[in-house]
């Protein structure tokens, strides 16, 4: 492990160095108080100290809208969409978002491997950055600490006057070669505590979820849930999609496009003819939470929620997934936990 000291004033040098070698995607300000990953044009616009971005880096590998093929209606032929390998440097990614990419890698590699995702994912380099948990983060409870470097090629940890830059892989070393930095010989910077937690270890959650199917929490959580789908759409591990054909106004051609979809939306489980298999909001809420903490975890051994807090921060009704889980935990363990 090689550690360097990156002085605060030299962060722009790091960005420039990366920009000379790769396309760089990094967090930028968006709107009044939000952040979003965007292609970096100006090193000064990169923000490394941010709570969370609106979307995770998922959007680069599984775009919100993606053309699967283009068809010609005059002769019934088509051409496949051509996803481009990203090959980019993703700078300033939080540990939970890298962990989420790891889960998406699994989904698009296991079983029927999907070319579109895999092509876009090719050559991506991650330079992580530590974060200070706010009231929504609880990734520590699902085994992802703010300074967790897993999956990163290099990692930045904040100090008072700059960052510790840790080189983690040969790819990282190669990419950062030529960036003249002094070694860092100080102590490990202090870890920031989480404000939000799930109160049992992941190893016990599966059992608790098993017993939670008929729990009143699903109905309680649905009282103010309006089924808008925001929680799904901002989730870094949600990968469900819809596919629709769009016809050009000339009616001679068009495209088959896939779009992010979400299991909280009523139409998600609706079949032709009108039957909705998950009709009520409580059933949908339960499906969402069990997908994160049971179904996919049962087969992969890891929770599918990475504790980023996006669903909770973005929910118009403020419904908290951690509170839902803690309510289940509390009842299963007979410890009183306040109603959500």
């Amino acid at each position: 492990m090689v550690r360097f000291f990156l002085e605060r004033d030299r962060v722009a040098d790091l960005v420039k160095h990366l920009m000379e070698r790769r396309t760089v995607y990094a967090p930028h300000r968006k709107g009044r108080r939000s952040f979003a990953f965007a292609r970096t044009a100006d090193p000064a616009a990169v923000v490394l100290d941010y709570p969370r971005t609106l979307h995770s880096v998922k959007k680069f590998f599984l775009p919100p809208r993606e053309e699967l093929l283009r068809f010609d209606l005059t002769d019934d032929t088509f051409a496949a969409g051509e996803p481009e390998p990203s090959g980019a440097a993703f700078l300033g990614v939080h540990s939970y978002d890298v962990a989420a990419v790891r889960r998406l890698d699994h989904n698009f590699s296991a079983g029927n491997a999907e070319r579109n995702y895999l092509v876009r994912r090719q050559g991506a380099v991650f330079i992580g950055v530590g974060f200070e948990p706010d009231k929504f983060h609880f990734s520590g409870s699902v085994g992802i600490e703010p300074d967790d470097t897993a999956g990163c090629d290099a990692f930045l940890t904040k100090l008072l006057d700059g960052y510790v830059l840790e080189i983690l892989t040969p790819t990282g070393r190669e990419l950062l070669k030529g960036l003249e930095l002094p070694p860092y010989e100080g102590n490990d910077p202090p870890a920031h505590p989480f404000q939000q937690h799930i109160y049992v270890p992941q190893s016990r959650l599966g059992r608790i979820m098993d017993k939670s199917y008929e729990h009143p929490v699903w109905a309680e959580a649905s009282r103010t849930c309006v089924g808008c789908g925001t929680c799904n759409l901002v989730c870094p591990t949600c990968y469900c999609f819809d596919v629709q054909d769009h016809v050009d106004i000339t009616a001679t051609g068009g495209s088959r496009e896939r779009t992010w979809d979400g299991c909280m939306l009523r139409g998600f489980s609706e079949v032709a003819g009108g039957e909705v298999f998950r009709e009520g909001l409580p059933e949908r809420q339960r499906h969402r939470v069990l997908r994160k903490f049971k179904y996919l975890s049962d087969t992969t051994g890891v929770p599918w929620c990475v504790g980023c807090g996006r669903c909770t921060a973005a929910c118009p009704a403020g419904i908290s997934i951690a509170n839902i889980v803690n309510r289940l935990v509390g009842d299963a363990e007979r410890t009183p936990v306040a109603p959500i």
Partner: protein
Amino acid sequence: MKLQDLINPAAAKELYLPVMAEIRDVRKLTELETLYTVALPGGAELGHQPGQFVAVSLFGVGEAPFSISSSPTRRGVFELGIRRVGMLTDVLAGCTAGRKIGIRGPFGRGIDVERFKGKDVLIVAGGIGLVPMRSMINYVLDRPGDFGRLIICYGSRSDRELLFTDELEKWRRNPNVDFRVTVDRGSPDWTGHTGVITTLIPGLNLDLDNLACCVCGPPVMYRFALLALRSRGVKEKDIWMSLERRMKCGVGKCGHCQINGSYVCQDGPVYHYPEIKALQEAL
């Protein structure tokens, strides 16, 4: 199982690109249902199992899954029995022979015919559930040495909605087939059995030690069919069920068809009953 590592895209097949097939024949079955005969380019075989499905698409309209209605023993072409219920099926209803359609598949897990071999085969089909079950029925009829007796229970809302009426007649006349049909409400000239499909089950002559049963029908039917079969003493391990859910991709990616943790397009549509017994969302 652990998290699968990222694999090289070169090792991944195209999942979403259709093969352009051709409609060879269009036959109206009822007011709502049509049977399409489809040929793949170059006379390729679809290579399916009874109970599997394909994704059918018309460019500019969209794509949807449909069960395959023909038996794999009938080669060269395959058949799809399709009910008009939505946009794609509306447009398909206007298609004639020669029309190009996109086909992906076959997808899913069909009927495990090996586990039906040597046994009496009981098919319980309600409404358009007969469409995929017809594939199994004709498979059994085409390989008479492989199976025991064939027992078919078919229920329809009314006699006007009965599908494959010419074939129903053949099955009825076949001495090796015990064919029963019922309608919920018969028209005045209907002389057959009237009542929901489960009313056929008590009267069946079943060899409970040598039976394999497959159920397919509208969502509401499964629980009742199961109760009727169990009360006749049919063992859970001898029951398979073909389920329907919303699907977009057919390859285990889009998430729509999940029932609890199971993907219908991968683990189904035909499930062995003991596998789904514990899935609360299944039946």
